[in-house]
């Protein structure tokens, strides 16, 4: 039995650069000794902030970082047994390669002959023997990369942090370095924490992938887990190619999506609203009558080792990968095997919509237009003669301002009078929840509203969503937020 040996534990880490706007929130992660962990996410998701807190360049606003059980959150970088490979390498331009690599060892007051031995040894590891006297700017990007790694690992750190170290290299070089880093990791036995936005890189190298979005951990797991069983639609969409549909469980082993019912293998109870993910390589294209769905090929693109074939079925598009071309216009059937359907329960606590204010203080989103009360945007603001004034009596320019509206499904009701409510659409799913029904209403532009209503409507009914005044909350979206 393998012993649990966590070298790093991040507990409830929160980091705010600006008060009360966390870039990382309630982040929990354990990293085992010797693991290759990748923090993966789009830019601005907080992955680099996590890395900088591990290195000691930033202090968490709240939470603890444990290194081998000791809280190191407040320790300065020079006192941590952690070294970093920087994104742009940060090799000292005024020192030659030897002095760059020896920098850390000299700080430790190591004897000269030992430093010499170690530098020579580490240059062998990164395959750049004899580069001691070279200047930093005489090296290519890939060579600088290796020196940056050498400079870090020569200190024999417990943990090596790598901040998008391959970002500046060209494609071929990057692939080569990926494999090299992986074998280096196996050779050295050091724990690697790697940051990247490149999902392919993460899948290739990692023992464990940590997917982040908006400062929040979305999923942590092995590459296989992350790819095959993503925790939510974000992860499914971010890692690899995928078809994602809104669906609902109709029975223990059945799920409805894309206008048909499929067999599936998960155990979510009937009525659960789910996001359904099917990888393109698992979408089988058959004779029209043999498929569960019927459609027509609308594009067929050569991608090297496969053709990416897009099929239009009703209003849904399904992407498939096939090793032969299918001509555009060919009618096909779509079959999906039960074990390749992955269902992810949907969280529908609240409805959120973002839109722009026009010059008449109306919220605009697609064809929805809702007048907004200035006081709802900011308690200090007042409205007079079509102008908005702040607490000090200054005119505020509201046109173009981004605003988020939200309402709770429990506060809204459905109406068959299209004029009564602010949002209109067709009911797409109904779930009976005991004392009420949970409806999903889809508007013209695929936007969805969730409403709890005690009366029974039918799928396909055209309804409007009525939100009583005071129950529709609005909030200004500050710059930089998404």
């Amino acid at each position, binding site marked *: 039995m393998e012993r649990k040996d966590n070298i790093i534990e991040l507990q409830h880490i929160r980091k705010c650069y600006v008060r009360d706007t966390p870039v990382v929130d309630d982040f929990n992660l354990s990293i085992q000794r010797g693991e290759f962990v990748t923090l993966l996410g789009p830019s601005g998701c907080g992955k680099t902030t996590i890395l900088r807190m591990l290195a000691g360049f930033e202090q968490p606003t709240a939470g603890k970082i444990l290194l081998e059980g000791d809280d190191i959150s407040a320790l300065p970088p020079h006192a941590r047994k952690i070294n970093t490979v920087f994104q742009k390498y940060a090799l000292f331009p005024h020192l030659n390669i030897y002095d760059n690599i020896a*920098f850390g060892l000299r700080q430790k007051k190591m004897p000269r002959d030992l430093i010499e031995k170690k530098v020579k040894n580490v240059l062998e590891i990164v395959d750049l023997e004899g580069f001691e006297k070279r200047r930093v*700017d005489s090296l290519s990007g890939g060579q600088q990369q290796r020196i940056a790694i050498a400079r870090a690992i020569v*200190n024999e750190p417990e943990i090596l942090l790598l901040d998008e170290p391959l970002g500046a290299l060209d494609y071929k070089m990057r692939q080569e370095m990926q494999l090299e880093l992986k074998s280096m990791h196996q050779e050295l036995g050091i724990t690697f924490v790697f940051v990247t936005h490149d999902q392919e890189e993460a899948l290739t190298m990692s023992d464990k992938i940590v997917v982040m979005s908006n400062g929040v951990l979305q999923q942590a797991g092995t590459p296989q887990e992350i790819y095959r069983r993503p925790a939510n639609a974000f992860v499914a969409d971010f890692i690899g190619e995928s078809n994602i549909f809104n669906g609902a469980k109709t029975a223990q082993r059945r799920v409805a999506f894309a206008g048909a019912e499929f067999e599936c293998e998960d155990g979510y109870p009937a009525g659960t609203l789910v996001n359904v993910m099917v990888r393109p390589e698992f979408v089988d294209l058959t004779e029209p009558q043999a498929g569960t769905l019927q459609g027509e090929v609308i594009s067929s693109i050569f991608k090297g080792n496969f053709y990416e074939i897009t099929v239009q079925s009703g209003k849904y598009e399904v992407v498939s990968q096939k090793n032969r071309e299918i001509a555009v216009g060919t009618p096909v059937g779509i079959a999906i095997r039960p074990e390749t359907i992955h269902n992810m329960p949907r969280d529908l606590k609240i409805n959120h919509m973002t839109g722009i204010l026009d010059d008449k203080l109306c919220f605009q989103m697609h064809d929805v237009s809702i007048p907004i009360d200035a006081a709802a945007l900011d308690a200090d603001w007042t409205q007079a003669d079509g102008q908005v004034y702040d607490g000090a009596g200054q005119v505020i320019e509201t046109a173009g301002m981004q605003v988020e509206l939200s309402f709770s499904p429990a506060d809204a009701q459905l109406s068959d009078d299209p004029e009564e409510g602010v949002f209109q659409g067709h009911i797409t799913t109904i779930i009976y929840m005991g004392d009420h029904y949970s409806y999903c209403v889809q508007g013209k532009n695929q936007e969805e509203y969730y409403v709890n209503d005690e009366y029974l409507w039918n799928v396909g009914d055209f309804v409007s969503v009525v939100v009583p005044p005071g129950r529709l909350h609005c909030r200004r979206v500050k710059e930089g937020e998404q």
Partner: protein
Amino acid sequence: MKKIHFSRSSLGIPYGIFLVLFVVFPLLIILFYAFTDGQGRFSAENFIFFFSNGKTLGTLAYSLGIAASTTAASLLLAYPAAFILAKGRFRRRPVLLMLFILPMWINFTLRMTALKEILTVIEKNLAYYPFMNTVIGMTYDFLPFMILPVYNSIAKIDDSYAEAAMDLGAKPAQVFLKVMLPLSVPGIISGVMMVFLPAMTNYVVLDMLYNSTYIMGSLIGSYFSAYDWHNGSLISMILLAIILGFSLCSREFAGQKEERTGGIRI
């Protein structure tokens, strides 16, 4: 009709003419006067006179002393200020940098008169400390020329260098000594060049602060006002040689780093 085409190199012609007319040609005239006597014959007499006369050599030494002290004082004042402005808590506050530069826009005579009054209040009689007063005056005058290049070169140092040093175990003092200071050397050299030469020749500061000692600038001035163009030219040439030697040395010293971290190359 034939069109006239300008190639890119022909755009440089006016500047070439300008340089020849107003730089190369005058330099040659100075060189000619420096090594001729009153009859226009070649003569090294001026040269020998300068380097065998105790008075002129004393002036040279005094000038070098003033210039070196001024440069050192400016650097000691400017470096911490530039460092704090570029990397400290006040970074990205151009207003503060502006405040350091602002005195340059106030008339020189006004500033010197004000300084003179202040020094008189403190020292009672300016004649007691002529050397120190001159260094104070020049430092006050030339400080912006030191701050700007030093600030520029420090501001251009990527933060990741300091972080890398910390990461490799360097404490804050070591980070400064082993990384920040060496990387800001090009700025220091530019600043030194900007201050050293004017400090050797700017005799107006001396005059205004009632320092009756001669420096190289006053020597040139007095020769020329006595219509001794030959000795005046020779001293100009000596100054030129000093600065040339200085900049060659510093270039050797700074190596190719200037292109990387900025600073004004002279």
